[in-house]
């Protein structure tokens, strides 16, 4: 019997690792930007191309920065949640329209509701690179000092909103 114990232990350890691996999402790459100041930019707004949006305006507030695009399928899934969240007034939601056109973006918001206080237009994706965007939608929680506190890769789900974002934002607001 004893000769089977070692292989069994090795098997269980390997199986344990593999089982853990089943539940990991390889797309969730830890962002090096968490804990760092949100990169500065100045981009024209969707509602009025003459004016710009810059994260500096938001110093002193906790806010959500949601990167989206009208061509992005998963954005469609999370959009109703954002609209609802914006309605509560709990946290201001700002958007960045990533590699998109003005017409498509405006039409998309007209159809589905506009949760954003303002949307910055990152048409060539340059600011997206500064924020390490590689798969829209991505959402950043930015604190009062302008530091990125959290990055959500992929759509916000009800669970993420309830278990992660809302408690985190409450904590950041109290700071």
């Amino acid at each position, binding site marked *: 019997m004893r000769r089977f114990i070692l292989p069994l232990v090795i098997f269980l350890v390997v199986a344990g690792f593999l089982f853990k691996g089943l539940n990991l999402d390889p797309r969730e790459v*830890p962002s090096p930007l968490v804990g760092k100041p949100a990169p500065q930019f100045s981009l024209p707004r969707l509602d009025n191309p003459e004016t710009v949006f810059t994260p500096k305006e938001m110093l002193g507030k906790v806010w959500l920065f949601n990167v989206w695009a009208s061509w992005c399928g998963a954005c469609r899934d999370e959009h109703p949640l954002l609209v609802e969240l914006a309605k509560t007034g709990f946290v201001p939601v700002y958007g960045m329209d990533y590699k998109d056109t003005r017409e498509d973006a405006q039409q998309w918001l007209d159809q589905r509701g506009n949760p954003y206080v303002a949307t910055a237009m990152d048409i060539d994706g340059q600011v997206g690179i500064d924020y390490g*965007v590689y798969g829209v939608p991505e959402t950043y929680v930015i604190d009062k000092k302008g530091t990125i506190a959290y990055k959500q890769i992929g759509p916000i789900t009800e669970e993420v909103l309830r278990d992660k974002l809302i408690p985190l934002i409450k904590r950041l607001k109290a700071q």
Partner: protein
Amino acid sequence: MKVYSILRLALACLLLHTTIVLAEEAQPLEANQAIEVQVQRLSEELRCLVCQNQTLADSHADLALDLKREIREMATKGMSDKEIVDYLVERYGDFVRYRPPLKSSTVLLWVGPFGLLLAGGVGLFLQLRRRQTMTTDAPLSAEEARKVSELLDKES
């Protein structure tokens, strides 16, 4: 029948011709060869985050094309390989590098395989040594020796 095969041949020629024409329309290489070499070298070292198992060089994802353009711009400015890789790591993390740096979080990755090899080697060594002591030379008894030579004789 014959008409069909001629038609088919003509069609094949036509298709072949189109591909040749397309090939001629490929973008010319950038003027500066050194920069192209640097861009190529770097994009083979860096991972496309959209398609994860491809290098930037292999990938045709939108982001990969953007990043290649970005790398080319930085290379044109005369930035070194290290500066360009650092720029991308700052934004996307160590995951963009196909060769992760040796850090406390990656020690297991770098040392693990050698550790396993060493453990396997030690295990094998111990096992073989134990087996050696287990099988002692057992001299044949007179009866056994007789049987053996009998069998050998029969064979020949």
